[in-house]
């Protein structure tokens, strides 16, 4: 017997909220980044679960593109973090408030 789609969607929600908690709560910019990856991964899980549910591979192709965008995002984002670290000697997001209105 295959596992119910409901279980996968619930797991996806839990993973997404854990990732969101990481993004909102953590102080270190790299940890925020890792949490964004967790959120993307949770969305991928839901997409693949629904692709399986409908017997249609379009959801899997969406996941393929999400992974592509995640790779691009990580490359640019980590470059930004390294650049910020070079100029400020810190990647603590509490100290990055130059753009505060």
């Amino acid at each position, binding site marked *: 017997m295959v596992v*119910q789609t409901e*279980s*996968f969607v619930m797991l996806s*929600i839990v993973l997404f909220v854990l990732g969101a908690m990481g993004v909102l709560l953590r102080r270190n910019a790299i940890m925020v980044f890792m949490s964004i990856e*967790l959120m993307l991964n949770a969305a991928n899980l839901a997409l693949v679960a629904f692709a399986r549910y409908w017997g249609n591979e379009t959801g899997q192709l969406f996941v393929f593109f999400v992974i592509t965008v995640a790779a691009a995002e990580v490359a640019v984002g980590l470059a930004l973090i390294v650049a910020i670290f070079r100029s400020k000697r810190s990647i603590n997001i509490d100290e990055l408030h130059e753009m505060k209105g």
Partner: protein
Amino acid sequence: MLEITPNTIAFLVFALLSVGGALGVVVSTNLIHGALFLIVSLFGGAGLFVLLAAPFMAAVQILVYIGAIAILIIFAVMLTRSMTSLSEIFNRQWWISAIVAVVMLGLLLVGAILPVWGPSGTNAMLPVSDAVGTTVDLGIALVDGNQFVLPFEVASLLLTAAMIGAIVIARDNE
């Protein structure tokens, strides 16, 4: 709710890996440990993809997420010399953030689970068909003019742009 079958046991194991890894990322005080927990979580996700009859996605997950993205993150941890144990792991607005996260969990559960799978829902939980897309189908869809050839080309352009952008941003301009 769940019957004990090999599939459900595998689901529980991989779900435990994903959730445990995610929890580890959120609460770990050491950045290298956080990155390793991220790898555990992503590996659990790859196992779940196999359970969902998407072996190609599982392979891509391991190759791209674990092989490239996680390693890149570990490189960034080392470059920023921030792997020492952090005394304070949460930022200043942590209590607002915690409330937001709990509300988000509630909204998602109410909004996504109840209408479809709640007491008044359709109660359709198992896949509607046994048709499973193979890797050949995926490959054809990516180069088929009527399907995903344009997004595929745009994705390659995006990756090139991201690579050039990363080099330009991270370069030492002396």
